[in-house]
């Protein structure tokens, strides 16, 4: 019923749009001379903002890079960065079981927690030490305070250090110059989605500021998980307590804020991502329990001092930053529901314990802080060279770990905690799941951009990192950019990168199944790329690239000799090759058609089998059409194809899917703007692969994505 109603709204909007289009065309013909020929003078709207100085032009790194601007993000009607990032060729957003957490899958590189991708906010990492990801209680990231998202495919450790491995996602927030009025907006839609935001900017003398607060609440999805790990336990133990079939629990209650203040040579930025009432998706143990709730508080602050002319032809930038994160449990985290025996089996295959009346409970909480200070100098004094040198210091610490649980060993008695016993606090005892610890990192980097002939530019970079826990690593890169002809630019790229082992991989203890290993080395990758940027005329931009990578020392949990546990080892190797093709067709000043196709073949060298999870093929098409009378329509179709199961997983292949998103926008005047957004317009049953498990996958029917959602949006500038 809801869906029929939704379709009728869409039809009404479409007829209004067509009517408006027709009357708009008529009035356009009657229009006398225009006020100023802006299109003739500046071309597209992005360029007006650049030419009028409110936005800086973006110099892309000599790499395979994509930039998505605030204007494009708004046209898409995106409410989260993941919707934006899906448009990047060769990048697919997979899903983790816990929390449906985003897995940014570049070019076939996948793993359990996706630490092989570096996400930066204004150039500063938001990587967590625990799992090397963006936080277990991630909860997404809204887009209203974002100026642009820069994505580099391939390794970037020579500039960014650790974890710039399969790709780098840099989220650049808005500056005081970019917004000239106050603005606010609300968005409501299916799944009880309610977003509201307000932003302001201004200047007083030398001081200018930007601030934005965004609040987002949603139930997330009503997609069903048919069967979970407890379903299997029910089958094995004779209980009947699973909540499956039941909906994925993706309730979110988010508050994000971003602040920037500029004063002369100083820039101060601060931000927060507060996550409350966070539903755990399909659970940490692949078990549904609808009352489980988490929270996370993440705050960052950074201060940057720039001196354009420190010496002649030398500029300097000094930056200090601090980032604080937490993973917290609201109430109790029920790993297995009340009445379950838990996953504890004796050698005969019989459950060790009777049913846990309150369920199997584990409340792990982690608090981290990250401090950084760095300096860089750019020197242009040597003719045809631009030299950059820099260095810095990083210290990251898991400063507090707490754990309350009703299973395992009671540290006070040394005896097993039994079903029905109260929760035991194992914090600060040898029986906690992870040890509190810290790591520091000192680094130096050097880069030279050398214009050695008129059309040839060679970028050479190298970075040396020394870590307190796993030692030193040196990562070079080379980029040769050749302006081959008026229409064509060719790039040859080579890069190496490393991925720091996470604390879960080095310091996990007391887990009945897995053990950390302090002797781990970083994972390494080497990558070769050849890229072409061809612009045969003003209407077309054609970009293609071809890559090969070798990913080694992959950290995997390898079965131990005792037969019951697995320990983290640098055991895996994966190679891959592929290509990405992008086309932008500027049909007219008002109509842009964009498409990309990505293909990759990656091989798990240990078993000589296709790598799991990442799509081998992806096709993305988008149409953005500015219509008369300030209407704008944006259509996006994303087809995800050929995802392999891990070797040994006997399920049928994951089904391909195509999702269509539509955004319809109408600028009423310089104060009001309306939008209607439909995601997954055809309500496709799209799924991301769930992990394989022993003896069978716990969630056999994969992880369903959100069905059709219709959202309405109002923006107000004042």
């Amino acid at each position, binding site marked *: 019923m809801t869906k029929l109603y939704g379709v009728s709204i869409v039809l009404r909007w479409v007829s209004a749009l067509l009517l408006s289009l027709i009357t708009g065309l008529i009035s356009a013909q009657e*229009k*006398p*001379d*225009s*006020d*100023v*020929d*802006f299109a*003739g*003078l*500046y*071309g597209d*709207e992005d*360029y*007006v*903002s*650049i*030419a*009028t100085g*409110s936005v800086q*032009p*973006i*110099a*892309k790194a000599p790499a395979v890079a994509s930039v998505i601007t605030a204007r494009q993000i708004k046209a898409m009607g995106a409410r989260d960065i993941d919707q934006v990032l899906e448009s990047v060729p060769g990048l697919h957003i997979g899903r983790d079981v816990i929390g449906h957490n985003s897995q940014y899958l570049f070019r076939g590189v996948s793993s359990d927690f996706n630490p092989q991708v570096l996400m930066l906010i204004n150039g500063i990492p938001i990587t967590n030490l625990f799992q090397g990801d963006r936080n277990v209680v991630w909860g997404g990231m809204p887009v209203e305070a974002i100026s642009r998202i820069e994505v580099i495919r391939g390794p970037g450790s020579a500039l960014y250090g650790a974890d710039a491995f399969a790709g780098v996602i840099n989220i650049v927030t808005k500056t005081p110059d970019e917004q*000239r009025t106050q603005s606010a907006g609300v968005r409501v839609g299916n799944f009880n989605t309610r977003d509201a935001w307000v932003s302001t900017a201004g200047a007083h003398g030398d001081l200018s500021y930007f601030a934005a607060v965004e609040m987002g609440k949603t139930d997330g999805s009503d997609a069903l998980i048919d069967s979970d790990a407890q379903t299997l336990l029910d089958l094995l133990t004779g209980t009947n307590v699973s909540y499956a079939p039941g909906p994925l629990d993706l309730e979110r209650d988010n508050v994000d804020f971003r602040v920037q203040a500029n004063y002369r040579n100083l820039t101060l930025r601060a931000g927060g991502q507060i996550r409350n009432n966070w539903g755990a998706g399909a659970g940490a143990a692949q078990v549904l329990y609808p009352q489980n709730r988490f929270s996370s508080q993440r705050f960052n602050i950074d201060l940057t001092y720039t001196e354009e002319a420190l010496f002649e*032809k030398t500029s300097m930038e000094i930056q200090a930053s601090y980032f604080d994160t937490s993973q917290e449990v609201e109430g109790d985290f029920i790993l297995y529901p009340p009445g379950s025996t838990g996953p504890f089996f004796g050698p005969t295959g019989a459950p060790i314990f009777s049913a846990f009346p309150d369920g199997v409970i584990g409340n792990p909480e982690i608090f981290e802080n990250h401090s950084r200070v760095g300096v860089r100098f750019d020197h*242009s004094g040597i*003719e*045809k060279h631009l030299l950059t040198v820099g260095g810095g210091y990083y210290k990251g610490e898991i400063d507090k770990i707490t754990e309350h649980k009703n299973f395992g060993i009671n540290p006070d008695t040394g005896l097993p905690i039994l079903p029905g016993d109260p929760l035991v606090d194992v914090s600060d005892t040898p029986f906690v799941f992870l040890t509190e610890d810290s790591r520091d990192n000192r680094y130096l980097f050097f880069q030279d951009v050398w*214009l050695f002939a*008129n*059309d040839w*530019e060679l970028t050479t970079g190298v970075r040396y990192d020394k870590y307190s826990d796993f030692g030193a690593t040196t990562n070079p890169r080379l980029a040769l*950019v050749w*302006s081959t*002809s*008026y*229409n064509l*630019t060719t790039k040859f790229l080579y890069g190496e990168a490393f991925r720091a082992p996470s604390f879960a991989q080095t310091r996990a203890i007391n887990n009945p199944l897995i053990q950390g290993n302090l002797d781990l080395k970083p994972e390494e990758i080497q990558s070769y790329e050849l890229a072409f*940027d061809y612009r045969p*005329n*003003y209407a077309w931009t054609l970009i293609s690239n071809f890559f090969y990578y070798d990913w080694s020392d992959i950290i995997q949990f390898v079965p131990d000799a005792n037969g019951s546990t697995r320990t983290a080892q640098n055991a895996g190797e994966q190679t891959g090759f592929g290509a990405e093709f992008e086309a932008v067709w500027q049909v007219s000043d008002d109509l842009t058609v964009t498409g990309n196709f990505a293909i990759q073949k990656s091989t798990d060298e240990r078993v000589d089998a296709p790598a799991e999870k990442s799509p081998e093929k992806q096709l993305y098409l988008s149409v953005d059409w500015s219509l008369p009378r*300030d209407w704008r329509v944006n259509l996006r179709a994303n087809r995800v194809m050929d995802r392999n199961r891990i070797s040994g997983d006997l399920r049928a292949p994951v089904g391909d899917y195509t999702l269509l998103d539509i955004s319809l926008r109408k*600028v009423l*005047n*310089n104060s009001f703007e309306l939008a209607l957004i439909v995601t997954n317009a055809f309500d496709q049953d799209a799924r991301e692969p769930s992990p394989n498990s022993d003896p069978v996958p716990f969630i056999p029917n994969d992880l369903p994505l959100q069905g059709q959602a219709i959202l309405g949006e109002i923006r107000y500038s004042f």
Partner: protein
Amino acid sequence: MLTASELVVIYPEVREPFAQVFEDIVKGARDGYKQRAQLVALSENQSPVAFVSVLDRQSPVLVLGNRLAREVSTYNPDHKVIVGAVNVEFDNVFGITLSPSFEIVSSKLRLLVPGVKNIHVIVGPNEGGPLTSAVDLFLQQNLKLIVHPAEDIRAAAAVYRALIQKLDEKDAVWILPSGSFIGNAMLSILLQASWDKHFVVFSSNPVHVKRGALFSLYPNNYKMGLSLGRLARDIAADKAPDRKMQPLDDVFVTINERASKHLGVHLTDDVLRQVDLVLPAR
């Protein structure tokens, strides 16, 4: 009741991000005029004529944009009208057009590409006059201005094709603000030839730089507003300049990094100080 010294600024109401252009001009005008100013934004279907006709004739009226300027200059001849942000010159009014002055064009060209000796420009039937008079001015900068007249776009295409054959690194082609009969197809041919034969293409349209022209001069809207405000102040004080419509001196310079590297135009710090916007290489 308006006082005699109040400046009335009439400008079109356009949507973002284009509104920024007029806001910058208006801000400059207020700062340049230094007295009270009243701002009137008119929507697409509103005429300024009736509004202006009831104003005190001693109050200067600054009108921005082609449409409003045309209407006021035609129907309010008795007011002290100053026009700005216009592509063409109007009779009976004072003002500043969007066309960069010859002085500024020649000085920026000399600075960026000192090796250029000849400037070729293709003009329409009624455009040759002012350019012919500018030949001496360019000569003072050691630049030979060569004007190629063309009757229409077809004739211009033939002139361009013939011209392209003869040019080398000592030559520059100047695309006038009026367009010099250059459509997308001819621009593409011209820029391809400029790449192959190392001659310079420049214009006063930043879009051409995006497409591969070496540089472009385009309005610095705030400073242009400042000049308009000062002009209004002079006119209010009955100190009108000799020349009614003036070309633009307040410009930004944008340069294409890829073309500059190809042509060997080294973007030293001294050069970059004169450049407002570098369009990065791809």
